């Protein structure tokens, strides 16, 4: 079993009739993903790349039994699309759209409270369970079914690490891009919990970077949960140019949580193995797994 996805994942696509939706849904179908419907308000009743199009998510869900949605709707309407999927009780929503206003993402997070949906993104490359289902826009070809779970804030580094893990003779159970925006759905910690509970996942790679607090949150969780599975972390941005500070607000709120070395140190103290450089992640997880065996 992978996390989040399985062979019964039935996908509808919000914004399928646009350029990005059309292109990537075609690629997902080619990968073997069961895409069952598209949703574009005003285009209900049509057929697009061989799939029925509905006006509303609830309608599409009732007609096709979809249990996941991928959102390509442009920024102006992306939050409304996510909220519509949450209200239609779609269990898994992946939002690919970039540049969604941050207040809109807060509205989406408010809608998620108490709802039964999980949201990945926005600004996410999606979720990939090699050989089972691709719910996203990531490149494929170098992934293999296997035991390494990958959770990341960066699409490009995920592609890189997937290739390294395969090169090291391993495969991936699932890769998840939590999204590059400051306010998003599932956190790295949420994903780690799922990986630790998943029998097929033998080890986890966490790809973090400067800024935000999510890696610290993972470190706090690991210190408490003491996972039996090896966790390897790569934190990039140690040598990033410091942003010119803007007023004093940052100093009042973040209190040194955004620093790359501080994050790596916290994760190491909590039991994670730190990959010394981005090109060493595959090797590091392979060593960690062979030692754990």
């Amino acid at each position, binding site marked *: 079993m992978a996390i989040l996805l399985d062979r019964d994942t039935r996908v509808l696509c919000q914004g399928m009739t646009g350029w990005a939706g059309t292109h990537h849904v075609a690629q997902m179908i080619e990968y073997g993903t069961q895409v069952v419907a598209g949703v574009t308000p005003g285009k209900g009743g049509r057929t697009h790349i061989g799939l029925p199009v509905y006006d509303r998510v609830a309608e599409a869900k009732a007609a096709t039994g979809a249990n996941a949605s991928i959102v390509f709707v442009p920024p102006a309407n992306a939050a409304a699309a996510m909220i519509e999927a949450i209200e239609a009780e779609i269990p898994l929503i992946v939002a690919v759209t970039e540049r969604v206003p941050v207040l809109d993402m807060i509205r989406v997070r408010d809608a998620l409270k108490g709802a039964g949906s999980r949201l990945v993104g926005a600004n996410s490359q999606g979720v990939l369970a090699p050989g089972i289902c691709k719910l996203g826009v990531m490149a494929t070809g170098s992934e293999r079914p296997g035991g390494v779970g990958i959770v990341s804030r960066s699409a*490009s580094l*995920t592609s890189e690490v997937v290739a390294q893990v395969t090169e090291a003779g391993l495969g991936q159970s699932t890769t998840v891009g939590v999204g590059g925006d400051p306010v998003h759905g599932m956190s790295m910690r949420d994903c780690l919990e799922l990986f630790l509970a998943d029998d097929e996942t033998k080890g986890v790679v966490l790809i973090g970077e400067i800024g935000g607090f999510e890696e610290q949150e993972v470190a706090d969780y690991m210190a408490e949960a003491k996972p039996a599975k090896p966790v390897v972390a790569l934190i990039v941005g140690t040598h990033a140019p410091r942003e010119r500070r803007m007023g004093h*607000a940052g100093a009042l709120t973040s209190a040194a949580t955004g620093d790359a070395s501080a994050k790596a140190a916290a994760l190491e103290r909590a039991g994670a193995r730190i990959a010394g450089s981005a090109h060493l992640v595959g090797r590091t997880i392979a060593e960690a797994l062979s030692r754990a065996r």
Partner: protein
Amino acid sequence: MRLHEFQAKRLLADYGLPTPRGAVAFTPDEAEAIARDLAVSPVAVKAQVLAGDRLQAGGVRMAHGPATVRSAAAAMLGQRLATAQTEDDGLIVRRVYVEEGVAIARQLYLTLLIDLRTAGLVVLGSPEGGEGIEERERKGELRCERLSLPIARPADRSELSGFLARLGLEGPTNEAGCDLVEGLRRAFVELDASLIEINPLAVTASGELKAIDVKMTLDDNALFRHPELASLRDEAEAERLKLSAHRNQLNFVQLDGDIGLVSNGAGLGLATLDMVHRAGGRPANFMDIRTTARSLDIAHGFALLLDNPKIRTLLINVHGGGMQSCDTIAEGLGIALRKSGRKLPIVVRLAGLNADLGRYRLANFGCHVIEAPDMGAAAERAVAVAAGRA
């Protein structure tokens, strides 16, 4: 997008923020005329540049009488002002804000921003506003109060009142403070702000509140909802390179080394930067090609690097995938090299989607590149080339 003080004050006045009377001057004559109209003493003359810490840098002067206002304005206008928050050579002062002086009894600090942990709007306040607040925070000497604010409805009046009481505001001043914070909350949501900071918020001897300085940034991603605000962008002040990059779907930060870096995706870009540092090299920039960039955008990006005389080599680290493939980036490089005519050693590491097609494209453009099998090797090779060792 960051706003000037005068722009922020003007916008927030519509939401009931009390500010001292004032106006913008482009010339010493205008400054003097504004001072005459204000008919008070003293008057503050404040350089309008997009950077804080202006007071210590001489960018805010108190002047008594129109003639002194005139000479204070004349001393600032057209000059460069360097503060702790600007580059070393500072920013050109194109306008000053001329504002009535306020007799301050107490100074508070107040800011509204998004709290990433709770994914919600929050107001932070300190009873000790003014200069040096960051220094006191670092030393752990600063008292800071916080209150979550709703975005879909007005804030709870009694919560607001309690928050302001913790900052030491009582009676009518507390009432006025509640209106002020609620106004800022509404402005934050309606204008899609990402930060509103008032420092100091003055309490006058008569218990009135006045926002002495305001910093405000708007969410760039929401400007499509506010075309009238988008026009407030001060393009003259934006760094030329950043502006060009922004228009061409790139993220760009200039650094002072000699190795030009190009990657697709911020994560891979940061990883490349780290690897070059570890190998002992000095990056000339950080550049991340967004997924929406076309080959001509990318060519503009490479041109920014090729125009930099300090650069001795380029390091291109691309993992094609999703919406950005290696051949598009190779095409951008080819176009830029042909246009510039500059001969530079170029270290290239292409992997993922269309890597072979990318190599073929580079060969067809007649680009001579040094290929590296993986990221680590590519970084080491680029550092060796820049140092004249390869």
